[in-house]
């Protein structure tokens, strides 16, 4: 079943998908943190030096009443699962992972755009998530070139 191109180098666990899986974990826990933060509703005063939650309370922070981060957490969990299975030799899932991270990276760029040009403020943990998504996508794309 396994094409063993990007996978099964020596010890049977492919390094690139494994790195991707670990990175997806970072994204997963970042999203979980943001979700918890959303529901525990700890408001921070706005000040000249920042600290204000413009991004996390903006109109774009929710879809149908659910915080965006819940969808992010679900996406990262799927990405993690796909990458891990790929690391253990499932090649088709690695392609699926590539496709998924492409969508996630695209969405991240849109969120960065919103923060920069529409809301006019950034949120660190949102940026971490964007960086994670984009890096995952780069790993997925890079793996195609490295092996072929």
């Amino acid at each position, binding site marked *: *079943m*396994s094409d063993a191109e990007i996978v099964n180098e020596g010890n*049977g*666990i492919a390094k690139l998908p494994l790195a991707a899986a670990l990175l997806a*974990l970072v994204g*997963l*826990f970042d999203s*979980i943190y943001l*979700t*918890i933060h959303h*529901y*525990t509703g700890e*408001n*921070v*005063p*706005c*000040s*000249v*030096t*920042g*600290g*204000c*939650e*413009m991004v996390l*309370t*903006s*109109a*774009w922070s929710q879809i149908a009443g659910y915080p965006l981060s819940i969808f992010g*957490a679900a996406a990262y*969990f799927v990405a*993690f*699962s796909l990458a*891990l*299975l790929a*690391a*253990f*030799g*499932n090649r088709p899932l690695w392609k699926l992972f590539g496709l998924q991270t492409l969508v996630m990276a695209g969405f991240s760029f849109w969120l960065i755009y919103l923060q920069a040009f*529409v*809301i*006019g*403020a950034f949120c660190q943990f949102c940026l971490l998530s964007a960086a994670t998504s984009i890096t995952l996508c780069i790993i997925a794309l890079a793996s195609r070139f490295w092996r072929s």
Partner: protein
Amino acid sequence: MSNGKNNSKTPLIIIGLVLIVAVGGAWWFLGQSNAGIKNTNKPTNAKAGQTPIVTNIQGAQPPNMLGSANASVTVEEFADFQCPTCGVMHPKVKEVVSTYGSRIKFIFREYPLAIPAHDKAYEAAVAAEAAGLQGKFWDMQNLLFSNQQAWSANPDYRKVWEEYAAKIGLDVDRWKNDMAGLNAKARVDADLARGRALNVNSTPSIFINGIKLEFEQMTVETMRQMIDAELAKAPNASQPAPSAPAAGNSNTANVEPKKQ
């Protein structure tokens, strides 16, 4: 799904574990913090010994005031219409103000922060003050806070405000003129100057008889405790002061029309 021989189950087990840790952890944290919020709401007590901050910079005169000008307790809030936390505080402050009615003097001060994310805050403050020039400050203030998300990131926010102006029965043309004029702006600037003199560096900032509240103290419960403590210090503690609107501005003491 699985394709290896010996390790076919390993990834699935790891995935399962991660799922359990993620969902379980989130669940646990949410439970913890809910319990935490319940517990911490009460003990954040009024800190004894905090000294009132004073300045002789008066702010906009007459101020936007609710309650009684003669009350022994003054609650002064500095807020920014684009600050989400001020939006969250708005109903809480309203609750406190309506609880005490004419036993306190509540003053709202404009404090639009000059930060990029608050690009419309100053203008919103001017819009509220311009409504105030027609005696409708509190109606506009309420609409701006209650609908913060609807206009805050809306490029057509001026249209939205115009709808509010019409809704509360303003002479919209006059209101627009006042927004462009100097009077409303001067009021905002005066409030800003007072805020700066009081070292206000974040919004919302609330002072009770000059004592600046910590952010954790900005709960209905704690504010009530502090107001009660201040009321108790006054000579006629239990006597509600007569509702006496300060002269000059119809935005003073007009939310609690006491039928006495």
